[in-house]
């Protein structure tokens, strides 16, 4: 009950936000946060729920971004169609690439995904006739107006894009919730706990892993497409290994294996640079230290730790004594 009111309040606040805020720049930050939250959810799916660390999500975001840009500019598709199809493209790439890669586990898998991200990045930088290389790809259009005739809503401002991205985020959350609460979600968790055990119990783990990896790729691609049409300009830099590491950081901080963790993490990683106007160098050192410290002391991330703390406090308040048992 508490959860649902909280959720409703959050959504209302999110809808009201651009109308209340006067500084354009904050709307810009909000859009970037939401895009990043989607990428964080993709990491959450493959890492938090399935237990496979993928350092390729930045690359899949890039595939989605450039695919959408190329479809809408060079191929003349409508922006809505491009945004709809790009996740499919990214997901397909993940499928093709994931099939052989998921045969290896753990560290090896992570190294392979890192190499994959680097390959994507190198192609983006060097395939100049198509992507524009490091100089970038300008002129990515905003979505066309929706509706008919006099009832058409123009999407030509930052505010309008904010709502488009918000809708997209809510869609992603619904999809994630559906996956996580279904049988597939339970199987993924079983794989994360102990893959050998799950296979011994008769699960064809590879099918579920591949699904998770492809879906994660598609989600990241979706975020990329939104990013492309919001920024209007693309260059390879936001899709490097660093971006993938940032996404992992967001999920670790916020809480992997929870639905709301990546939201918190995504928001933090976009907002922290703005709030802490210290030199970027210090900020990144703090990130790294946070990663190390969190992994040692709070391996499940901030959100679960906070939730745990709140639960304990509630229990203590209700029973009038310290809890006899710790809930994991």
């Amino acid at each position, binding site marked *: 009950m508490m959860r649902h009111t909280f959720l409703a309040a959050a959504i209302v606040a999110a809808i009201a936000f651009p109308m209340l805020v006067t500084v354009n720049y904050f709307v810009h930050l909000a859009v970037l946060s939401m895009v990043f939250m989607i990428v964080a959810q993709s990491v959450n799916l493959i*890492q938090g729920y399935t*237990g496979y*660390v993928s350092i390729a999500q930045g690359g899949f975001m890039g595939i989605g971004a450039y695919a959408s840009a190329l479809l809408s500019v060079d191929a003349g598709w409508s922006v809505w169609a491009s945004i709809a199809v790009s996740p499919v493209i990214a997901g397909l790439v993940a499928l093709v690439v994931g099939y*052989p*890669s998921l*045969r*290896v586990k*753990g*560290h*090896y898998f*992570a*190294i*392979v995904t*890192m*190499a*994959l991200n*680097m*390959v994507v990045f*190198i*192609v983006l*930088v*060097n395939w100049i006739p198509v992507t524009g290389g490091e100089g970038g790809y300008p002129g990515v259009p905003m979505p066309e107006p929706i509706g008919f005739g006099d009832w058409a809503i123009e999407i030509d401002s930052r505010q309008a894009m904010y709502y488009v991205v918000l809708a997209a985020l809510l869609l992603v959350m619904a999809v994630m919730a559906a996956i996580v609460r279904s049988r597939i979600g339970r199987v993924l968790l079983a794989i994360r706990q102990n893959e050998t055990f799950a296979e011994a119990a008769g699960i064809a783990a590879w099918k579920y892993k591949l699904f998770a990896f492809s879906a994660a790729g598609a989600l990241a691609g979706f975020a990329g497409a939104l990013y492309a049409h919001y920024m209007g300009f693309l260059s390879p830099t936001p899709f490097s*290994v660093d971006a993938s*590491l940032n996404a*992992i*950081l967001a999920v*670790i901080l916020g809480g992997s294996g929870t639905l709301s963790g990546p939201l918190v993490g995504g928001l933090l990683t976009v907002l922290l640079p703005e709030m802490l106007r210290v030199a970027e*160098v*210090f900020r*990144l*050192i703090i*990130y*790294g*230290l*946070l*990663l*190390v410290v969190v*992994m*040692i002391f709070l*391996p499940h991330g901030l959100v679960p730790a906070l939730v745990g703390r709140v639960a304990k406090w509630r229990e203590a308040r209700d029973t009038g004594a310290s809890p006899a048992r710790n809930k994991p």
Partner: protein
Amino acid sequence: MVDLLQQVFNGLVTGSIYTLIALGLTTIFGILGIAHFAHGSVAMFGGYLTFFLMTSVGLSLVPAMVVAMVAGAALGVVIERLAYYPVRMAPPINAFIIALGLTLVIEKANLLMFGVDQVIIPTPYTRVFDIGGVTFPELRVYVLAIAAILVAGMTWMVQRTWMGMAIRAVAQNRATAILMGVDVNRVSMFVFALSSALGVAAGVLVGALYAVAPGVSGGLVIKGFAVLILGGLGSIPGAIIGGIVLGVTESFSSAFVSSGYKDVISFLLMIAVLLVRPEGLMRRGTR
């Protein structure tokens, strides 16, 4: 023909540096099961430190390099104790994330301590030897020589010394090694110290040939892992062969395909080996 030999020599030099990096990685990964991504940043730290010792303190190349290697070894032990030891019992994914976090910390700490500019380690070796049209710059010959010496030293240590035997024991079967009285803690720290020292040496060589700069470490580490995969986990001869193969492949890719895509070719090679023959080119069967 001359060009071919030239490309091979160039490839050998780069390959020897990859081998040095891979040696450190393969030992840590093979013994302790940790993918120590921060290794490249430690290598850069050593490079920067050497430059600093040479320009601000006035040491010459060799003493500066030795001091930096010792400092690198110490840093390796600190990393092992503070960051990896606490999670040795946790699922491997934790150590992995910690490795990523460490990479950030060390890489940016390097920026803080040594600035954003690239740093080129000055050497007095500018002669060029010409044998039949193939040119051998003095510096590159020394790089190859130093790498060879260090690799040989490492091999000797692993085969002939007590600590080397302990390392091999832990690599074969950690639980049994503990039962047999091997102090796994000591082995752990020693492995990190030795690997980091080798990494620093590689960093110095890179700094002398090209530059120590932000962004170099990532490429080094991933190439190091590529060599590790090519040559087989925990195998020193594998690291040597893998390094040579990778270096020469890169050289030829750069010349005959495109310098932009040379890394793609290296990575695809690595991915192919990983999927087709995961134990590496050198190993026979699974261990």
